[in-house]
């Protein structure tokens, strides 16, 4: 019987990469990012990628590595701040970016994974986002038609996963990973802990294994914090207002 388990990121990408392909990657900012897979993608040198994700890394981290290696031709994202290389490339016309409202991007990916070719949303009506798109009224309100998104390859990061590909995410590291897992022609998952079937509670699995074709235990997670915000311990009483 074929196993979904691979020894590392490089092995897990073997045979999946080709020039001009579309790749989705999970993460919000640098939270819940498939760090090992992104480095293996950089090391592969595969070119002319279209990359779909909420962000495209930030300076020195995440998808920034693939970007600065000149491998990305086009980006679909909702926010690309804190990434000087990308901003510079974009302003110089060195890269194409299609900006999507964050919720529209999330829903387009969910739709792609769920076999829904298009849906309507109020988001973006009357703005640049609606340009060139079909608009239409439902119950007197204007909506924009948005299409589902799929990818040749989806890269996701989970906290725990079992050898069957069942995944559990941790806190806000969940973000775009669950939808992206459903929208890849092939989905590869990296996990902090790889466990045996039966160790994850069936009621608490966020991504069922059907969506994951390959899985491996990631290593050396950096989990870089973009904006470390803390409060001094003595200010506890005041800080707990909400």
């Amino acid at each position, binding site marked *: 019987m074929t196993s979904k388990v691979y020894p590392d990121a490089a092995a897990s990408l073997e045979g999946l990469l080709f020039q001009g392909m579309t790749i989705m990657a999970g993460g*919000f*900012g*640098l*939270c*819940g990012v498939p760090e090992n897979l992104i480095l293996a993608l950089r090391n592969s040198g595969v070119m002319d990628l279209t990359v779909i994700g*909420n962000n495209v890394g930030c300076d020195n981290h995440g998808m920034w590595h693939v970007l600065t290696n000149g491998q990305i031709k086009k980006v679909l994202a*909702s*926010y*690309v*701040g*804190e990434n000087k290389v990308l*901003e510079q490339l*974009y*302003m110089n016309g060195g890269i194409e*970016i299609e*900006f999507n*409202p*964050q*919720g*529209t991007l*999330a*829903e387009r*990916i969910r739709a792609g994974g769920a076999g829904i070719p298009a849906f309507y*949303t*109020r*988001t*973006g*009506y*009357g*703005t*640049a*986002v609606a340009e060139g798109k079909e608009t239409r009224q439902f119950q007197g309100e204007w909506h924009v038609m948005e299409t589902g998104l799929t990818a040749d390859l989806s890269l996701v990061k989970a*906290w725990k996963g079992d050898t069957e590909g069942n995944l559990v995410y*941790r*806190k*806000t*590291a*969940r*973000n*775009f*990973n*669950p*939808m992206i897992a459903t929208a890849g022609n092939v989905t590869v998952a990296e996990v902090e802990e790889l466990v045996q079937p039966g160790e994850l509670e069936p009621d608490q699995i*966020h991504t069922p294994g059907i969506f994951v074709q390959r899985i491996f235990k990631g290593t050396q997670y950096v*989990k*870089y*914090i*973009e*904006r*470390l*915000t*803390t*409060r*001094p*311990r003595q200010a*506890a009483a005041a*800080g*707990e*207002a*909400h």
Partner: protein
Amino acid sequence: MAWTREEMAARAARELRDGYYVNLGVGIPTLVANMIPPGIKVTLQSENGMLGMGPFPYEGEADPDLINAGKQTITELPHSSYFSSADSFGMIRGGHINLSILGGMQVNEQGDLANWMVPGKMIKGMGGAMDLVAGVPRVVVVMEHTEKSGAPKFKRQCTLPLTGTAVVDLLITELGAFEIDSRGGGATLIELADGVGLDEIQSKTEAHFRVCSTLA
């Protein structure tokens, strides 16, 4: 005396009601989190996938897997829950968030909002702003009344690319507060900062607006 940033946030906090689920943008809106009136319960949503956003962690206790939509490290509360970005924006788009308080670059008298890009400048993307203004039933914008140049930001028509049309319900600046009827009824000045006169706010505003009878 115009309102300070804290006073603007405090004015926005008066929009909170018991039981509300609220999404706060970055900047002045974030200050509202510390101004929830006593005796009411407000749950803060972070659009990257969390309800029940808690305060910043103690020094040394930050968790890289727990950030808000501004990428800041935060904490969870006993009633917190996590969910995917698709579920999060389902919540927003579906009208389940009661109130969103956001920053703005320009607002017009019909409630149009521009707050995501300036042509020719670095474009970072709209993030979740377009979804929030389209989906949340009550949108409050908190912004400076004028540009540094003195040019009015509350306008007849926005000149910057829009975030949404007819979406702003309340505009709060350092000079006062305007209720905007996003169904086409126009804007009404409903409050003036202490010491700010009607003449001053009129001279610094391009938008047409009515004046609430108690201020006229």
